[in-house]
């Protein structure tokens, strides 16, 4: 009995050493995740044998994982704050945020005040915005979502999103809901807008990639890779691939926008 226990312990200890993970572990925002997965795939094709393991869990969880060492790289879809600012970070791209409505919706543009009024629940009818009468079905992401956090930071000015808003927990389901419900409004990643929904102009500015890069469309969030301390070895190789023209082209192809400035610390 005792012998078996000691044997088990020995095996466990041996397997806990470093160097058993050959893959680079990247974890965090589910918004960044699909793009990181494409990057990882192309990276592995380019450099066979270099595996990158992409996991979700949310921006906050990813940053924490990077801090604790559980992950090599943390993915965040929101700006860093507090002690997170001490970490090494690189903005790999920008993700525009689009306000979407049903393609048949009469409106084409909203002002930030109007969006705020709708999302706080002050305005409840499309008629108040100049459209035909009809109750507005407000859709938001769940608390803790990076996308929601970005939306709140950029548009809500500290006011609370109405408790009556429908909550969905992925970009995809928000888009699907809006495409099916003619009375609804929601927000998703700009890169995920397709012809099943209509992206509203903000203050008359089209929601496009160029307008995000040149800053005229203000609704975007940064996609950031963070790491505890300066990354090196295989981890740095992956990050460099991401920041290279090739990597950036991949991201652009997926609908992301290149950063206005490359911030690297």
């Amino acid at each position: 009995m005792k012998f078996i226990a000691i044997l088990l312990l020995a095996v466990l200890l041996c397997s806990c050493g470093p160097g058993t993970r050959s893959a680079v572990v990247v974890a965090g925002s589910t918004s960044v995740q699909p793009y990181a997965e494409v990057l990882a795939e192309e990276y592995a094709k380019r450099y066979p044998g270099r595996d990158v393991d992409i996991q979700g869990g949310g921006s906050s969880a990813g940053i924490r994982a990077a801090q604790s060492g559980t992950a090599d790289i943390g993915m965040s879809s929101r700006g860093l704050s507090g002690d997170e600012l001490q970490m090494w970070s690189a903005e790999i791209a920008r993700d525009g945020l689009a306000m979407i409505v049903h393609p048949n919706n009469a409106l084409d543009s909203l002002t930030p005040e109007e969006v705020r009024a709708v999302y706080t629940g002050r305005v409840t009818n499309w008629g108040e915005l100049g459209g035909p009468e009809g109750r507005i079905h407000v859709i938001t992401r769940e608390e803790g979502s990076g996308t929601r956090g970005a939306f709140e930071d950029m548009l809500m000015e500290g006011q609370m999103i109405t408790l009556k808003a429908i909550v969905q927990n992925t970009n995809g389901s928000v888009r699907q809901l809006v495409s099916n419900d003619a009375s609804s409004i929601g927000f998703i990643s700009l890169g995920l807008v397709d012809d099943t929904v209509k992206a509203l102009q903000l203050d008359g500015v089209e929601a496009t990639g160029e307008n995000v890069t040149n800053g005229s469309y203000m609704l975007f969030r940064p996609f950031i890779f963070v790491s505890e301390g300066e990354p090196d070895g295989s981890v740095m190789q992956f990050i460099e691939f991401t920041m290279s023209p090739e990597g950036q082209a991949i991201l652009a192809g997926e609908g992301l926008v290149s950063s206005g400035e490359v911030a690297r610390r």
Partner: protein
Amino acid sequence: MKNGFKDKLSERVFLALALSSISAIALITVFIVIQGAPIIGKVGLRDFIFGMTWAPSQGKFGIFPMIIGSLSVTLGAVVLGVPVGICGAVFLAEFAPAAVRNLFRPAIQLLAGIPSVVYGFWGLIFIVPFIRDNLGGPGLSILAGSIVLAIMILPTIITISEVQILALPRQYKEGALALGMTHWQAIYSVQLPAAKSGIVAAVVLGIGRAMGETMAVIMVLGNAPGIPTSILDPVRTLTTNIGIEMGYAAGDHRQALFATGIVLFVIIMILNITAQFITRKK
């Protein structure tokens, strides 16, 4: 001597196995309570249970809207599912010819075996658009959740009620018929009242199942954390509150979700004890 030893050994082994399953449950309970209790202490039990605002990012942890959500969706499921279930049980026990009965019973068992996520998905594809296009509102609503849950608890109610009715002594029905009652009169004057406590226990079990459902309803309720004003409004239940936010929660937020779990635990325990009490009273 040897036989005595074997007996004692097997007794010890069975005891150990039984204890381990009980201790697993106990451990989970203790874990949930330890994780959730601190936040209840911080917020205050009354403010937690009766607080109207759930906004973790602002430190507000009131779960009353979710309690209303759970209760209203479950109530809707009961209102829709129980009459249909009891009628189904009566049909199977009293009216169905053997061929029909042999078709329906396995079909109902099949219904019970469908995973809840499939129900939820079906609800999203069929029920939600139907409500949206014909009754108004976003379709994601208490009504959608109630319909999905009603269908999910049907097998429980039908099977148990049918067994209860079939278990009644024949004289109950025959005494009524011999008085000149029609078949239907005999059923609702005599058989259903006699099977009442068993049927009520079945309903309570169905309620317990409905209250504990997460996957089936998370896709059709809309998950708005506000207090609903009509059955066409989106709503959030205690279970979906945990389901939706667990992935992203940390610190106080996560503790609050565990605390929601404690409340759920208590509610379902009360329901189960009630069911046992009712069946024992027989």
